[in-house]
């Protein structure tokens, strides 16, 4: 049974902060198919279109019939743990610092025998387990075997916590916490057991409904943070940057215009200033400290969440300049991901469809509720994904985009202008 995590003691400022180490990251190109699926929170293996054989490890030709027609398909991951072992001596620094480390061989019901990290609550082999694909600290897919049925405090398992970004006992900065999604995020994080939430406030004179209640929560501290003000961002990073374990950039400037509907570039510039330059300012000031704290004990710096938009994948013409600013932010987030990769800090990009808020008022449903989106973001932190498409609209866009991005572009162009 997993022992529940206890609140970590205050950090001893005399001790040197350990530098992050990563698990081995080398993968062949075809093997990155597993990573691509895990990035979206899925466990997929290749299945032969000709003979139906499930492949593992990923390969270019079917192991049974050598057909090259292999398709990635979602797996249920159910199987039997046939043998297990515990790593008690290793020259791989990542594991050396985390021993003892449990691992095993799982015979999946679909056929293959796979090596997997082993959750502490899995009974001794042979036993039924569920295999999931998580991104590890190196950003590559890793399989983890979980017990057949959920167990109390299972998220607190030492090995599993190395594969997740669970907010429990961590300190989180949420930008623009006053917005409907910001408030929902703060509330969801408090429910998830965070140590502290810094609620960023850009416009102190605004009194949105609900914020007084959020402010009064004992885990919440309101901090001034206007992403369009470089000095303000720098000043806050100087005060709290060295303690932020998870940063959620929720700040968003959203107007409903394409190109012809509005004269001049002021609206587009304002969108870029928050959605793109705001992210850049945050990254320049907050990423350096997080980079150094990727292995800072049980509650190390682990994740940076960008609330983007599914419009970042393909332009939604009625919200054309907004889509462009989110596309710019997505591109920058990829750069940030590359720069933080050596530290084990995961960049989680969230691609919601239209949120049920004032700037999407004229869009017909379905629209995702802020509370639902906040819950999905917290669930993503507890899971092993880095690209999150919450809600039906986002999932539908994603499927169309993966299938044929040109078709999606044409479909969006054909949508009636409001």
């Amino acid at each position, binding site marked *: 049974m997993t022992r529940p995590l206890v609140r970590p003691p205050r950090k001893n400022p005399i001790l040197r902060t350990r530098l992050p180490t990563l698990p081995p990251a080398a993968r062949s190109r075809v093997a990155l198919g597993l990573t691509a699926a895990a990035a979206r929170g899925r466990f997929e293996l290749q299945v032969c279109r000709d003979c139906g054989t499930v492949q*593992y490890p990923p390969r270019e030709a079917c192991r049974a019939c050598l057909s090259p027609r292999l398709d990635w398909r979602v797996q249920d991951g159910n199987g039997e743990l046939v*043998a297990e072992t515990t*790593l008690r*001596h290793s*020259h791989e620094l990542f594991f050396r610092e985390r021993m003892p*480390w449990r691992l095993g*061989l799982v015979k999946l019901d679909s056929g293959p025998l796979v090596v997997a990290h082993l959750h502490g609550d899995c009974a001794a082999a042979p036993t039924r387990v569920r295999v999931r694909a998580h991104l590890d600290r190196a950003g590559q897919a*890793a399989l983890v075997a979980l017990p057949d049925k959920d167990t109390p405090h299972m998220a607190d398992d030492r090995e599993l916590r190395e594969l997740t970004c669970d907010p429990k006992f961590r300190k989180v900065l949420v930008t623009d916490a006053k917005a409907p999604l910001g408030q929902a995020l703060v509330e969801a994080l408090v429910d998830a057991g965070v140590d502290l939430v810094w609620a960023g406030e850009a416009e102190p004179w605004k009194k949105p409904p609900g914020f007084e209640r959020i402010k009064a929560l004992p885990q919440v501290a309101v901090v001034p943070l206007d992403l369009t003000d470089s000095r303000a961002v720098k000043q806050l990073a100087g005060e709290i940057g060295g303690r932020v374990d998870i940063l959620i950039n929720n700040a968003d400037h959203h107007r409903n215009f394409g190109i012809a509907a509005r004269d001049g570039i002021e609206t587009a510039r304002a969108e870029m200033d928050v959605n793109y330059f705001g992210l850049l300012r945050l990254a320049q000031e907050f990423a350096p400290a997080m980079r150094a704290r990727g292995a800072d004990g049980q509650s190390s710096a682990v994740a940076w969440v960008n609330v983007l938009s599914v419009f970042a994948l393909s332009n939604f013409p009625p919200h054309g300049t907004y889509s462009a600013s989110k596309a710019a932010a997505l591109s920058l987030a990829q750069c940030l991901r590359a720069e933080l990769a050596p530290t084990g800090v995961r960049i989680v990009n969230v691609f919601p469809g239209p949120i049920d808020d004032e700037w999407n008022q004229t869009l017909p449903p379905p629209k995702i509720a802020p509370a639902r989106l906040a819950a999905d973001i917290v669930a993503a932190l507890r899971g092993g994904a880095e690209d999150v498409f919450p809600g039906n609209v986002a999932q539908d866009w994603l499927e169309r985009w993966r299938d044929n991005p040109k078709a999606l572009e044409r479909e969006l162009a054909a949508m009636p202008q409001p």
Partner: protein
Amino acid sequence: MTIKGKAYIAGAFEHPTRHAPDKSVAQLHAEVALGALADAGLTRDDVDGYFCAGDAPGPGPATMAEYLNLTKLRHVDSTELGGTSYVALAGHAAAAIALGKCDVALITLAGRPRSEGMATGTTPRLRDPNQPEAGFEFPYGLTTANGYAMCAMRHMHQYGTTSEQLAWIKVAASHHAQHNPNAMLPDVVTVADVVASPLIADPLHRLDCCVISDGGGALVIVRPEIAKSLRRPGVKIVGAGETVKHLAGGTFDLTTSGAARSGAAAFAEAGVKPTDIKYVSIYDSFTITVLIQLEDLGFCAKGAGGKFVSDGNLISGAGKLPFNTDGGGLCNNHPANRGGMTKVIEAVRQLRGEAHPAVQVKNCDLALAQGTGMQLGTRHCSSTLIMERE
């Protein structure tokens, strides 16, 4: 077509060093080459076939052929089967000689993992991302020790094998090593010592694991006519087998090794059966490696290995099946982290009657060397060699 009786092991040499920080790997290859040729009574100029594996510096056989200045080569082979390569290469040399491709074959092995600070057993393997399985084993921290450990775990589950039974394999090896002046671990240990040693990869303890040593070894294999002209006891190769066993897409059976296939092939070629064998050299990277191979070769029933190895049954003079009378990889030497070469060398010593008198098997006329290479738990190579005293 068979290799039975077509080739003789005329020279065998095990480097006495176990720690060689002052020597290069190529130099160690040269020293063992000269040692084996001197043992056979031949010179470098007689060598027309050269055999080596992954431990040889440089690509394939070319670098070492130059370093050894072998100028008459007309047959080379650098088949890489991991630690068991040299058991297989002895069979390859016999095949080449049988086909007339060469007359005098030289096989060399050398390495210095101890000096290079490379504790291979707990270093994750498979670094090449182009290797299809590369991203699916080492990112989990799976070391060599863990791969073998899972075989042991499964064997314990399926057949009720115990840590104490595995420990008997180490105990037998240590009884032999006490008579070997070059052995790295010459002290006799007990079952209690083994199970009390720290766990390295559950359920394997430190004393279930082989040593890490520098050193090397070489063999000289020749045509029968040449063997008869030399003044050494004749050791005839009568059977060889090799195979690869891998995950097979999930149909893998952790408690059976490739020895089941390579052993059967070698026994069939030699026309003998396990009960005819007087002495066995069994690759002992870990205790479990020995137990599984003994079962697969047919020295006992599958699953009965634990009982078979217990109570000193592998100790020369005391038990029914003397094994690894030099102390094996568990106690004596595991040069270059590859134990295949020393397995053949000790079998040759036994057949010649040149083993230490305390461990020499009486009337040893038929011996078997068996090895597995790479990772028993996921994919490995296996090779078997049966040799007969002339």
